[in-house]
Each structure stands twice: as C-alpha cells, then as structure tokens.
C-alpha cells in the first residue's frame, strides 16, 4: 500500500478544500522559483515544520524523504560548478590536464546555489501537497483543471490497479522466498524470471475476467467521471 496516500487521508489538512490546497501549492511553487536563496531557505524551513506537524510524521522520516532525491540534486550541482576551460581565470581551484584547466567555476557558483535551493524548495512544496491531498481530491483537482477526461480516467485506473499488481507481486515473492527461491544468485535469477512470467500470465487472466464483468456493467468504452 502507498503509505503516502494513507498519510494524506489522516492529514490535519484533509478537510481543507482541494482547490485551496491546489492554489496554495501553485503559489508556493512560484515563490520558490522567484525567491532568493534566503527566501527559499526560510520557506523551506517553514514548510518542513508545517508538513511534519499536519501529516503527523517523525522528523527522521521527513529527513529521509528529503535525502532520497538529494543525490540527483547534488549531481546536477556538481556538474554545473565544474567546468573545463582553456584558461584558469574563472576557476577558483583548478588542475591542468593536457593544457586544459579543470576546476570549480566561479561564475557558475551562484547559479548552482540558486538551483540547489530552488530544487529543494520545490521538493518541500510537493511533499506538503502530496501528504495533504488524498487521491480522490487529486482527481477532483485534475477535473477542475479541465484536463482531458481520458487522462484522468487512465490516472484513476492506474491508481486502482497498481495496488493489485503490487499485492500480487508481493504474494508471489513471499511464496518464492518461503520455498528458498532466492538462496543463491542463480536461483534468484531463475525465481525472478518466474515471478515476471507468473505476473504476466495472472495479469492477462485478470484482464479477461475484468472484461467479462465490464460487459455486465454495460461498459461503453469510457469510464464516466462524476
């Protein structure tokens, strides 16, 4: 089960109208995009406190969430500040390799800073949004935004069936574990292949049964959304 969704249902903000939460999310995002690193950092701190309080999560958990995408942000940070040039005029620290200079680019540093804070800030906004807006409110928002109904239908169906898939995968995986399927590397490969195969066959079987039950519900080709 998606714990993030469960948290959203138990959030202190769950009864706030989804439109308000959506607009607040947008406004916060714009602030994060436009603000200086100082504003971004302050907002980030406030958002972190609000998120931890309204969603009833531990600080440790929140830090973990933030740490998860951190490697990606750091990698982009590093690629921006490092550069290879012909002269070492703009470089803070540098080494020369085959007549070229490799080092920390002074000019890129402010850009990298602001990018870093912007990314972290937007992450914090998105975390707050996703732990305070449960899925059904999300659907409502999408509808309010006048997104094509096909898109919303697909989102809805994916959300419904991803859990069935996860559950099925877990069931097969557990059954394989109990029968020593993952004891050695070789058996692990074998078990993993089997898992995929069984999953595929079962999905197909489920698909057929669902088609049958759709037929009994007068399915016309689309899923009406209210």
């Amino acid at each position, binding site marked *: 089960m998606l714990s993030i969704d469960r948290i959203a249902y138990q959030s202190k903000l769950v009864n706030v109208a989804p439109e308000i939460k959506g607009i607040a999310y947008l406004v916060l995002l714009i602030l994060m995009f436009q603000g200086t690193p100082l504003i971004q950092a302050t907002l980030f701190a406030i958002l972190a406190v609000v998120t931890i309080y309204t969603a009833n999560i531990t600080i440790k958990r929140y830090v973990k969430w933030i740490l998860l995408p951190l490697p990606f942000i750091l990698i982009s940070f590093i690629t921006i500040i490092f550069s290879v040039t012909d002269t070492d005029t703009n470089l803070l620290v540098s080494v020369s390799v085959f007549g070229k200079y490799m080092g920390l680019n002074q000019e890129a540093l402010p850009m990298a800073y602001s990018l870093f804070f912007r990314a972290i800030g937007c992450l914090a906004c998105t975390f707050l949004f996703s732990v305070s807006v449960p899925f059904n409110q999300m659907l409502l928002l999408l509808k309010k935004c006048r997104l094509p109904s096909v898109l919303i239908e697909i989102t809805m169906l994916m959300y419904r069936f991803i859990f069935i898939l996860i559950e099925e995968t877990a069931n097969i995986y557990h059954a394989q574990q109990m029968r020593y399927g993952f004891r050695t590397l070789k058996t692990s490969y074998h078990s993993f292949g089997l898992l995929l195969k069984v999953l595929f066959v079962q999905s197909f079987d489920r698909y057929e049964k669902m088609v049958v*039950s759709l037929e009994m519900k007068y399915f016309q080709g689309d899923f009406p959304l209210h």
Partner: protein
Amino acid sequence: MFKVEKMCVGYDSQEEILHNITLDLDNHHPIGILGANGSGKSTLFLTLVGLLKPSKGKIIFGDKKLGYSKKELFRFRQKVGIVFQEPDQQIFYTIVEDDVAFALRNLGIAEEEIAKRLDVAFDLLDIQHLRKKTIQYLSYGQKKRVAIASVLVLETEWILLDEPTAGLDPAGRSHMIHIIKRLISEGKKVILSSHDMDLMYDICQYFYVLKEGNLILEGTKQQVFLEKNLLLDAKLEQPWLVKIHQQLGLPLYQDEAEFSKQVATGGKHYG
C-alpha cells in the same frame, strides 16, 4: 420464463465443461446451485447471463430463445444481474460510490435517480459509511458488499450470486445471509451457487446439484438433502440440520431459525 434446455457449454470447442443441463428457474425461489470445486458452477452462471454461448441446447427467457446479438444481450442483462466470485475483478473505480454508480452512468440514468438508488443499496447492505472510502483500503468482505451493491442498483429482476459467502468470517457470513434474505423478501429472484451446505439449506427452496459438469440431482430440500450417498458422490456433505435429523433422530427443521425456536421453547420434539 427463465429456462435452460439440454445445454452443453465449453470454453473452447475441444473441451465440454457442462453436459446436457436442463433447468427450470421459474418456480421455487430462491434457487441453489450446489457443487464441489470445479464442478462448473461459475461456468453455469457465465452461461446464464449470456457471457458464454452454449454449444448445444438453449436458454429461454421470456417466451423467447435468448439471442446473442449486442442489443438482445443488453436488454436481457437489464433483467438479469450477476455478482461474480472475486470482488477485485469487478471493481474499477477508486472510490466506492463511483464504482457502484458505474453501470448506471453507462446506462445514462439521471444523477438524482442514481443518488436515490445508491442510497437504497448502501442502506440495505449496511455500507453507508464506506461511500467515500478508497477501495483498496477495504477488507475482502467489504469489497464483496460493494460488488453486490453495484449490481443491486441496477434493480434487475434476477440476481445471480456466485459464492457469496466464500472467504467471509462467521459474522460476515451471517450478515451476508441476512442480506440475501432481505433481497428475497423484497421480491428479487435469487440464484445462489455455493458449496456451503448449511447456508444453502438455510436459504434456498430448490436445488440443483452439479458433479463434474453433470446435473446429478434436483429437487426441494427434502428431496435433495436426504440423498446422502449422491451428495457424498458429488464431493458434498449434508447440512448439520439434516445430519442431526438422520443421526440423532431429531425432527427435520426447515431452517436454522426454526431450530433455534424449537430449542428455545424446550425442544419438545426431542427423543
């Protein structure tokens, strides 16, 4: 009129699953289809709602042979609804009330009417509190009730229930029995399939017993359940009320309610 005449059914032309089945579904409601695992109950139900086409024989509904054109099936299925065995295979939406309304919206029914019908069904099934819940956080028994609700709102004359109590705990089972009895008392024509003998004995009036795709026995309570050997042969057993009648010499009670009443009033029939 709802009848089946000398019908043979298979999923493909090579293997026949049901052999020469004849049923008269008009009288003695509710009707119970008894059979062990793999005896063909679900296959029979799929055929009864026109999802599988018989290779031989025919289904007669309302004086006419059932046709398999899209239009005819559409009309037929507004009279006959089915609740499948597995709830997860018949629930498509994320929110309970959306799913229950799905078929009604497909029919283009007005929203006020939909709201009214949902209310009735949710009350009857005692799931008013689940209305706005997300499906994947429901228990198996709750999902089963949602699946029934989505068929009840169609207000079909006939309702086919495939293994309604399989996988339910004792409380869920007795609640399901209560629901089925309510449906019956409201005049629905119910056909049940199950291998839960006590349940079937308690609820149904007329029975068909399937064994490996063959109809081996049919009749009322008294006719079917006293046939111990035939039932055992079909990998079934007798309901406990029949067992205590045959083995302890107690009177044959018609259902559990009658038994409880007799016991409460001192069991004057004992011995």
